[in-house]
């Protein structure tokens, strides 16, 4: 049986960044890419299931929608032990929102027919917290978001999960499988790639799929298929913090003053 893990390459910004001339995004020169933090956890969860099962019984497939640079993040997933990596990209993909990406990923799920699909709760850059559930909705599969604990035997008809709610509370839920789950930070302790893993990953292929491979067409992934459109991106006016300038010694002295002032008031 297969587990599909959706992984995203996220972008962090340089300290000094600029918005693109068209005002719709940040200038690409200021972006630094990495695998989304949440996806480290969902890949690890899939690896745990694989390793607990008989050798070769579970196949872990990392899938990402994105341009060529995304291969680097998929390589990282292979290095951590994913069996296969698939990158989907097509020039017809335009103005992609989380829902369109979910629709594309659902196309991959239909072809691979896994027993379980994992995505991260959210991406650290755009924080849509929507892609995983968009996969589920496109497939009409059972789904649960913000899963902090998972008890699942490969191929079982149900899984026991714990949803992480607000205020540190959990809720146990039984869910029918196959299902799409979004997994939360802290669900496990993600491994680092071993040197051996990194070496092996370099030799593994990354499968490149286009729309045709998914049996989809441009109307399903173009700008008009999206459920929202970016009109403008802007740098917000900075908040109200009063900055404490000076040398480290001066900054520390001022902080001590603030603490003393608080204690004086409290006394």
């Amino acid at each position: 049986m297969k587990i599909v893990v959706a992984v995203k390459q996220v972008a962090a910004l340089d300290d000094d960044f600029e918005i693109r001339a068209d005002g719709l995004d940040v200038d690409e020169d200021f972006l630094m890419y990495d695998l989304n933090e949440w996806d480290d956890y969902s890949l690890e969860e899939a690896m745990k299931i694989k390793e607990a099962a008989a050798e070769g019984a579970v196949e872990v497939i990392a899938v990402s929608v994105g341009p060529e640079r995304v291969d680097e993040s998929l390589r990282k997933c292979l290095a951590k032990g994913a069996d296969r990596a698939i990158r989907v990209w097509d020039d017809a993909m335009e103005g992609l929102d989380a829902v369109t990406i979910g629709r594309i990923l659902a196309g991959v799920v239909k072809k691979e027919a896994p027993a379980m699909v994992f995505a991260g709760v959210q991406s650290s850059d755009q924080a849509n917290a929507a892609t995983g559930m968009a996969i589920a909705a496109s497939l009409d599969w059972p789904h649960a978001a913000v899963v902090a604990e998972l008890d699942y035997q490969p191929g079982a008809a149900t899984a026991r999960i714990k949803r992480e709610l607000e205020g540190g509370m959990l809720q146990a839920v039984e869910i029918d499988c196959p299902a799409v789950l979004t997994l939360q930070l802290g669900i496990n302790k993600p491994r680092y790639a071993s040197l051996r893993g990194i070496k092996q990953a370099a030799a593994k292929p990354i499968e490149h799929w286009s729309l045709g491979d998914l049996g989809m067409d441009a109307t399903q992934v173009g700008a008009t298929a999206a459920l929202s459109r970016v009109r403008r991106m802007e740098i917000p006016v900075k908040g109200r913090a009063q900055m404490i300038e000076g040398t480290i010694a001066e900054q520390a002295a001022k902080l001590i003053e603030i603490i003393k002032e608080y204690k004086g008031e409290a006394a």
Partner: protein
Amino acid sequence: MNTILVVAEHRRGEVRPVTLELITAAQQLKTAADDRVLLAIIGQEVELLASQLQWAGVDEIIACKTNSAEFEPELAEQAVSALIVSRKPIAVLLPHSVDSLGYATAVAVKGCYGYATDVFKLAYDGGALVATRGGYNQKVNVEVDFPGHACAVMTIRGGAFKPVEAAAAPLLTVDDRSELSGRSRPLEFIEQGGGGDIDITTVEFIMSIGRGIGEEANVEDFRELADNIDATLCCSRPIADAGWLPKSRQVGQSGKVVSACKLYVAMGISGSIQHMAGMKHVSTIVAVNTDPGASIFTIAKYGIVADIFEIQDELQAQLA
């Protein structure tokens, strides 16, 4: 006449306060005096729950009766989808909460409605509904619209709108949806215990460490510093997830709201929405971060752009 649909959130018999913020957000979307705000509540004892929804600004409460007392994503999805079809709202407002994360997307995808999450500002521009959310880890604001969609589903960030205060007695309609079924079964709630640790919601002075701490070995220095200044040592989520401090010390949405705190010193914490949900109310926040663009500085009273280790050394030296 436009209709705006708000979906109330409840858990264990209590309506969650964020619902009151959504009513205010809905008011902002009214453009004519006869625009209507509908407030739906989905659950089993819905009449009882509806009695907690007597708020001004609501024209009608719709009690959707299902066969599950607690949230189940497919029941919520089908109930809300049916309401959108029958009531034709221009906007559907849900809290950006864990429950909504489990079904809002499905409502939007299946009905092909406009969709945006974690929205903190709503406006119209020449008739077009414009929602503002954050991007790139809150470093930019992103305005989105929904061309071609007559209805937009939006999840609204907690704390972005003031809760309604005035009471009223809106009309109540019962919508029987007990025929609906879902493919998951909510079971018991589990409170994560404090394990005998201090209750951080009651302390007044907190020094909190975040991922900027780098490695576990550094925690000890900050514990000493906290002891030295009589502060309680707390943390952001990565520190608790790594097990460097107990979960009971985590501040934020899935941790604790430090309601009694008066002075909060944030060391190497970027200021994610979920962390700020636990401390943004604190009157004096001092943030130390090497990144002048860190969003924690947007809510801090004082900001120090510096390395936390240098600040920690210097504080210890000056206190000695």
